[in-house]
């Protein structure tokens, strides 16, 4: 009992999902330019509820229902612990929808790398790599 329509749809969905998955895997967590013009977006320590780092602040948006957030938390906390002047601030996206809207966060984890003045210099949606985070920290420090 083969349903020809269903069979065609199944093949099409699997092909489309494969393409989507490959593109996503390539882009995921890539740290890109801060968004709408460099330095356009800025957060104060009061808004974040934490002091800014002297060199850089790694702001991570997370939710409880995010499978990759704990791994990103470990990575960023590790970088902050190993690099003087760098702080890791984790934001509960559900509790801070004001920040979510301002930063246009669509998924978790989203990571913003802030310079000492709180300007967003790099952002990643999806879990970033350690090398990318270190490079972004250098960029933030260089101002």
């Amino acid at each position, binding site marked *: 009992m083969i349903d020809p329509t269903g*069979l065609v749809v199944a093949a099409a*969905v699997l092909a489309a999902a494969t393409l989507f*998955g490959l593109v996503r895997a390539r882009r995921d967590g890539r740290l890109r330019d801060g968004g709408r013009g460099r330095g356009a977006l800025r957060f104060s320590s009061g808004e974040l509820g934490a002091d800014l780092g002297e060199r850089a602040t790694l702001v991570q948006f997370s939710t409880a*229902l995010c499978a990759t957030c704990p791994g990103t938390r470990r990575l960023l906390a590790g970088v902050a612990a190993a690099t003087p002047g760098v702080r890791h601030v984790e934001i509960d996206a*559900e509790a801070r929808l004001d920040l979510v809207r301002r930063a246009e966060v669509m998924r978790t984890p989203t990571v913003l790398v802030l310079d000492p003045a709180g300007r967003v210099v790099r952002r990643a949606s999806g879990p970033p790599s350690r090398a990318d985070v270190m490079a972004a920290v250098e960029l933030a420090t260089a101002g």
Partner: protein
Amino acid sequence: MPDRSPRVPVHVDPRGPRFAAVLTTLVLVLALATGSGVLLAAQAVVFALGAVLGLRRSPYGWLYRRLVRPRLGPPRELEDERPPRFAQGVGLAFAVLGAAGYLSGAGWLGVAATAAAVAAAFLNAAFGYCLGCEAYLLAVRGRARLGQG
């Protein structure tokens, strides 16, 4: 006595949900290719067990522990059960919709809903990408917007 407090999240071997996603993909593709509302309804029951009782009580979780896990080493890390469990709930919604479509004669609804479920299950199985979890923040944002309006 089992701890039911939501403050203490259950942690599971992440390879379990991945294995379950592979089985789910196979079952859903079979349901789509044969237009079987009954098979889809059976998968809906599996989703429901995972979402309501927890991943360990789902039949696929049981199969993983009985057949697969003994052949693998211990997991390198455990993961919070809540994201994949939430995704089981999303899968349940689509499977129920699809089964209702097939069984009531609205074949197009069955095909559309099952296709969406196949896409999500396959992305999880092949890439470890949890579509249901990604949808969660968008759902929260949308709900907050409605609340304001």
